[in-house]
């Protein structure tokens, strides 16, 4: 085969693979991502639907009850909009009042029920800014 | 106040150090930069020759392929050596 044509074929194959990968990425990411919601957006959430709750743990709201912890999570910028949360499972070390968390779960009777072991605390490399405040 | 004094002191030190070359006569000076460049290209070519020999000895390269590639590499190396001689000759003369 003439080398010019061979190179073209190779280029097309490589580009094709890249386009396929990109397509798969876009498609799966939009379908796999759980919607992240802040507490204020959850007030009239559909019961039973799964969300990622994101927000700040309200100061002084953390209560331990055996394995279960109860606390309130508020919007990042609006501490008055908050929702009660119950959660059972592994608690990452950085978890504490005032820290930003992400928790997967659903809303039942106005309370956000977290799925076991889905609590994520934002990585501590960000601590410096919070430290100063 | 101390800040300004310290700053001034540091400034004088840095300026003295940095501006030395500017007081020189304008000159080319030093080794011809082409020599260092050619030397490094020569080294790279030698490394390639060694690599090819290793590949051949390790059985990854056929005798025929090896002969062809080795000859080509050596041709390149000789060209570089010739250039080096030329540049060095120019500089000496």
């Amino acid at each position, binding site marked *: 085969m003439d080398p010019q044509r061979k190179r073209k074929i*190779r280029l097309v194959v490589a580009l094709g693979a890249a386009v396929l*990968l990109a397509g798969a990425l*876009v498609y799966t*990411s*939009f379908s*796999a*991502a*759980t*919607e992240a919601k802040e507490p204020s957006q959850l007030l009239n959430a559909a019961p039973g639907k799964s969300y990622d709750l994101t927000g700040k743990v309200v100061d002084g709201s953390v*209560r*331990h009850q055996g*394995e279960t912890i109860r606390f309130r999570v508020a919007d990042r910028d609006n501490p008055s909009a908050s929702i009660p949360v119950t959660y059972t499972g*592994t*608690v990452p*070390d*950085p978890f*504490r009042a005032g820290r930003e968390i*992400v928790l997967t779960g659903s809303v039942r009777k106005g309370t956000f029920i977290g799925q076991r072991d889905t609590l994520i605390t934002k*990585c501590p490399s*960000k*601590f*410096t*800014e919070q*430290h*100063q405040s | 106040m101390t*800040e*300004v004094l*310290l700053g001034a002191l*540091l400034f004088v030190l*840095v300026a003295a*150090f*940095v501006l*030395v*070359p*500017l007081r*020189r006569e304008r000159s*080319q000076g030093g*080794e011809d*930069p082409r020599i260092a*460049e050619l030397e*490094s*290209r020569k*080294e*790279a070519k030698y490394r390639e*020759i*060694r*690599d*090819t020999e*290793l*590949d051949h*000895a390790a*059985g*990854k*390269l*056929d005798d025929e*392929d090896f002969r062809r590639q080795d*000859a080509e590499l*050596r041709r390149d*190396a000789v060209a570089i*050596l010739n250039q080096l001689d030329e540049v060095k000759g120019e500089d000496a003369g």
Partner: protein
Amino acid sequence: MIELGRAALVLALLTAIYAGIAALIGRNGDRRWVDSSRRAVYALCALLTVCVLVIEAAFLRNDFSFQLVADHSSTTTPFYYRLTSMWSSQAGSLLLWAWVLSIASSAVLFATRNRLRELVPYATAVLMGVGGFFVALAVFASNPFEQLSPAPLEGAGLNPLLRHPAMLMHPPMLYSGYVFFTVPFAFAIAALITRRLDASWIRITRRFALIAWTFLSIGIVLGASWSYSELGWGGYWAWDPVENASLMPWLMGTAFLHSIMVQEKRGMLKVWNVTLIVGTFSLALLGTFLVRSGVLQSIHAFGASTVGAPILVLIAVVLIGSTALIVSRLDDLRSEKRIDSLFSRESIFLVNNFLLVALCAVIFWGTMFPLISELFTGDKASLAAPWFDRYTTPLAILLVLFTGIGPLLAWRRVTWESARRVFVAPAAAALAVGVGTAVLFDTGRRPWALLLFAFSAFALTALAQEIWRGGAARRALSGGSIPGAMLAVAARNRRRYGGYVVHAGIAVLLIGVAASSSFQTNREVNLRPGDSTTVDGYKVDYKRPTVSVDNERIAFGSVLDVSKDSQRFTIHPTRGYFRPPSCPPQRLISCYFDGESTSEVGLRRGLRRDFWTAVQPSIGPVLRNARGADRKFQLLARGRMRLAAASPNPQAITQQAALLQDVRGLAIRKIANGYLRDTPPAVFHVIVNPLVTWMWIGAVVALGGALIAVWPAPGARRRRVTSLQAARLSHQPSRAPWRARA
């Protein structure tokens, strides 16, 4: 002292600007200006060293008039952590960036003081542009020499989570990795501007890219080991944006290190190489940006950060400028040669490049997805670990396979005959390991892991065979023992053999990753003292709880006896509650539990498996007692202070305060000790992690390989002088008939 630092920092900015301008003035060959700009770079390095020393001295002396020190250290912070807490702050880490860059720039300019005269001025200008940018950030946006007046008596202390040996060196390693990639970037830009697009810019900066890669690798591994042993969740990688930010430049930098070999050897892939280094450097900047701006946590955090916007502007300038430059130089970037055959080392390198860049793209997309989805759907959605795993697992497995194939092929082209010769042993090993593990350990239930084991076996055997054949060939020429010959070959071909060792290390590392992520046992058990349970064959006895109280923290621990077959050991998982820097007056006692809490995991490492535990004590009863004590203590304090205020003795208030402090200490001790008398059940997180130790071993091996490749060959200089090779070349007239000179 603070004045010295401030003066040096401002002067550093001026020096960087001068160095860049002087280099450009000297671009057409006026050596005086170029020499002067090089000296300015050395001076910049000295000035920034002064800044760093001033800050370090302040940390060591507990000089809380430095805001930086007051915010990130305290008198109780241990020595080594005081030494390194500079980079736990934003201002300190920006200064670190600039300082390391000044060191790298000085090193590369020293190495090129008599070479590459066309490139050096432009490269200096680029280096100083970047360096000046970071010094300017330190001067104007985030000054490390902010002064507090009056100086507080005590600092806020270092975040307890960051008190881990790995954290001492993790940030400077990552930053050094990011920073050293600036050097090849600067020379690539210089090569583009001057149209000197042969491999000379690569030859000069290759070692810097390799050093950058090594630093970045160390940083990533340290971060993973910190996560494993400190964060109390038992994993080493969580696809957290901050982790991804360091992995992306690593992947693209790895691709760059491979593809530059193709340009050096064959004069191909020129556009690709400059694109890769621009991408790597941009990703390094992006890493700094993601960590420092907080944009992924929240768009709003971005506005609050003073350095986010400037770094973003720098990234934009780098990307747009470099792209324009590359496009305008496309004609000069044509390949000198073409790929001869699909079955050659260079095409395997291309495939590996493609896989590495694809991995990088996947991670980039997943990391930036919260922003992307907010842009398109208005909802901020994030992608979790399973999404990342779905793509990265197959890509990583293919990568291991091609890593194994690459070294087996020669450059240019390979005949079927020689290919068959070298492929037999690795393929047999892969098959044996695949079948063997499937039969012995039932790895068939995790097909990805099975594939990875088989491909790793392929790669490791291929590497071993390479080293063996090299040694054997050498021995045939010059005699000696096989191991001696293998060492001799390795010493003469450091780059190649260093690379082999890196590959072997990575293969071992990935075996550890695959085994520990696919075959771990992960349980949570609720135990009272005296209870026992069995996890994956290990019998776990909760012997007794422990309590320790000191000035900084209360720790509730446990003593676990663990046994399996004849193996028997005791571990002490503990959870520490750190006192926050200040407490509200109505909760002076219970607030002790509001601060950071950290796990000290109970970890028994082993070559076959790690036994990992973290404890989550129920502190409900302790907290209830503490709240009761809050009220009593507040009443007591109020009464005492009223008495003291009424007393004529001027010392009364201080005396009472000291007394109350003692009472508070006693109360806290008593309440904490209550945990021993009436111990509620605690949740133990137990993980049995197979082969995870091999991950760390693989990492160490890979780093050793990188060091071998970085180390300058001792013989190189000598050979240049003796010109032994030159003589040999001229003595082979049959092969060099075209050499006319005598």
